[in-house]
């Protein structure tokens, strides 16, 4: 690509035209320090527009922003002619970003959308173009990434910061905006694992369906808002309480039975190395006893304790299935 290297007044660069912007808007502190200390090592790319019009940025938005903040009047840029094609501009924008660092999912989404535009929506062709530019994305991922851009900004940020998986973000597509934003906020606050995101999303969505409410309305209920707006911040604890609360609301009968079982088990005062588990979902009537031991003497000791447990009326209470008749 033919480009000149020119010294340009920063006033002559229009950063509001962000059609080729891939990076996030805010430059990291390290970039400011580096430019301040060592100057511009890698030159921004701009495109000449028609005469008397400002230059359009193709790559280097954050560098130009830093230069402005540092009070530089001029900056050396590589200048593309006005006739440079969109494809050429996108190639430079992507390569300039992707070759030097790994792009987050939101940045990948912007790059994918640019390539899809120049490829007339052909994801396979877009993927073929992306590879040599340092962006290894397959057609399926390209289609997903471009859908991300239609979601609210709060979701973009949660995905960009790795607080929400791409698949969960896309699950928010059919939701109203406030629900998508509320769920993004939850992920930002509690930073759940991908599995927990899926569990929480599914639980909230299903609860919302059952209650004929939006997901945002469910999250605004006191059960959840108290957890999410707790004054003492302990994310792991908050997440644990939120999951338990959600489970109790989603499965009220089952969770009541489980809690009653645990209480009755407590009453039985089992030794530490023994446990009795209820059948999954209380579906069958077969309970499981676990004994952990390492020496024969320990096992003999357990056998004696077990004999005493078998005589304990609390055991009958634990195994009593009359809860089945009165949910």
């Amino acid at each position, binding site marked *: 690509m033919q480009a000149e290297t020119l010294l340009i007044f920063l006033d002559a660069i229009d950063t509001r035209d962000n059609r080729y912007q891939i990076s996030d808007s805010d430059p990291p502190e390290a970039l400011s320090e580096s430019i301040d200390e060592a100057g511009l090592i890698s030159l921004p790319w701009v495109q000449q527009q028609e005469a008397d019009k400002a230059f359009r940025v193709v790559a280097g938005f954050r560098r130009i922003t830093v230069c402005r903040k540092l009070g530089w009047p001029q900056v050396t840029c590589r200048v593309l002619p006005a006739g440079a094609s969109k494809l050429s501009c996108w190639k430079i924008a992507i390569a300039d970003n992707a070759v030097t660092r790994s792009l987050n999912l939101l940045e990948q989404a912007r790059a994918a959308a640019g390539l899809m535009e120049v490829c007339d929506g052909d994801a396979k062709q877009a993927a073929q173009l992306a590879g040599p530019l340092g962006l290894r994305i397959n057609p399926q991922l390209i289609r997903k990434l471009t859908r991300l851009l239609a979601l609210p900004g709060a979701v973009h940020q949660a995905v960009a910061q790795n607080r929400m998986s791409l698949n969960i973000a896309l699950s928010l597509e059919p939701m109203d905006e406030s629900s998508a934003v509320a769920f993004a906020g939850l992920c930002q606050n509690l930073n759940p694992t991908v599995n927990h995101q899926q569990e929480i999303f599914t639980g909230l969505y*299903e609860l919302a*369906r*059952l209650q004929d409410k939006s997901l945002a309305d469910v999250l605004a209920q006191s059960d959840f808002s108290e957890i999410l707006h707790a004054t003492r911040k302990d994310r792991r604890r908050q997440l644990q309480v939120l999951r338990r609360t959600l489970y109790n609301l*989603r*499965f*009220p*009968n*089952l969770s009541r*039975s489980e809690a009653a079982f645990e209480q009755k088990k407590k009453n039985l005062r089992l030794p530490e190395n023994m446990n009795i588990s209820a059948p*999954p*979902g*209380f*579906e*069958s*009537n077969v309970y499981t006893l676990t004994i952990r031991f390492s020496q024969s003497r320990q096992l003999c000791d357990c056998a004696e304790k077990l004999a005493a447990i078998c005589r304990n009326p609390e055991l009958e209470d634990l195994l009593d*299935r009359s*809860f*089945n*008749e*009165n*949910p």
Partner: protein
Amino acid sequence: MKIRKLYIEQGAADYPATRHICSRLEMPGQIIDNPESVYQEIARSPDPEKAGKSILLLTRNRGAFLRDCPGTSYYTCCGYQILHIGTYCSMDCAYCILQAYFHPPVLQFFVNHAEMETSLQQHFAKGEISRIGTGEFTDSLIWESVYPLAPRLVELFSRQKACVLELKTKTTAVDPLLGLAHHKKTIMAWSLNTEAVIANQERGTAALGARLTAAEKCQKQGFPLAFHFDPMILYNGCYADYENVIEQLFSRIDPAGIVWISLGSFRFMPELKPIVARRFAASKIIYNEFIRAIDGKMRYFKPMRIQLYSRVIEAIKFHAPEVLVYFCMEDNEVWQKCLGHTPAEPGGLPMMLDQRAVQICGLSGQFPAG
């Protein structure tokens, strides 16, 4: 049945049933060498489960026509046998397991009826009491608009004494059967549900009143009847609604002519859930309190099933204390708590139902061993 495309498997082209159906549908059938192309066409569709309801494949049943009901372990199965006449259904029920059971789901009608009749005759010749139904992999009567199979089956069963045919449906397509000499060897059975479930979860099925009218007509013609409350669905107000269905049922049907009533609650393979969510966006049936049961299917938490069954059984017994009520795929705990007994030994539930068929339908023959 609204058929948009008709495919005929090469080897099925010359069967009388094929010719009959082509003429009835007034549609040229496309001859295919391999059904795979039809499966691919359906699988590629944005809504394969819907596409499969308007594409009819006429083919031969190359496997067994008579099969055991695919009951799962742990839960008690009624042990009836399936007469495999075709697959899938033109009606569209949200809860229908066939959407996830066939890959992809496609309307197939087996046209090699001579072989089917041979299988049946061989079975009849054993003289063993058995219950045979066509309503497991399809609705028993949806095919009547394109091919009169049910009258032929009624006639075949009427000529022997050991086996009873159960035609299970959500339609009202009984008129061609009414004048037949069935000799009580065909049980006309309806799946019943509340009017809310029928309106919201069963697209294209007959209304409750219409089903009961059809059942009334059959009872007047002396057909033994059966009713299946399956799948029963929990929702706000469902108890009163089910009680109302039972009231309507017994206001129109004489319980003395009912062979059995079965109860089963909504259960599904986990694979069905995303299909219902996608195809029936307004339906909430998959969001209730389900647990993964011992056979891997999702079932309502057991106390909820027991409560629902108990209410419905109480209502049935109020109107018809003598009628035989059984559970489809439930365990001994449910039986004991809802009916006060477990399926009687020896023989269990299959024997209970066989004996009932002997009593009401006049079967005679040997009871199956074990």
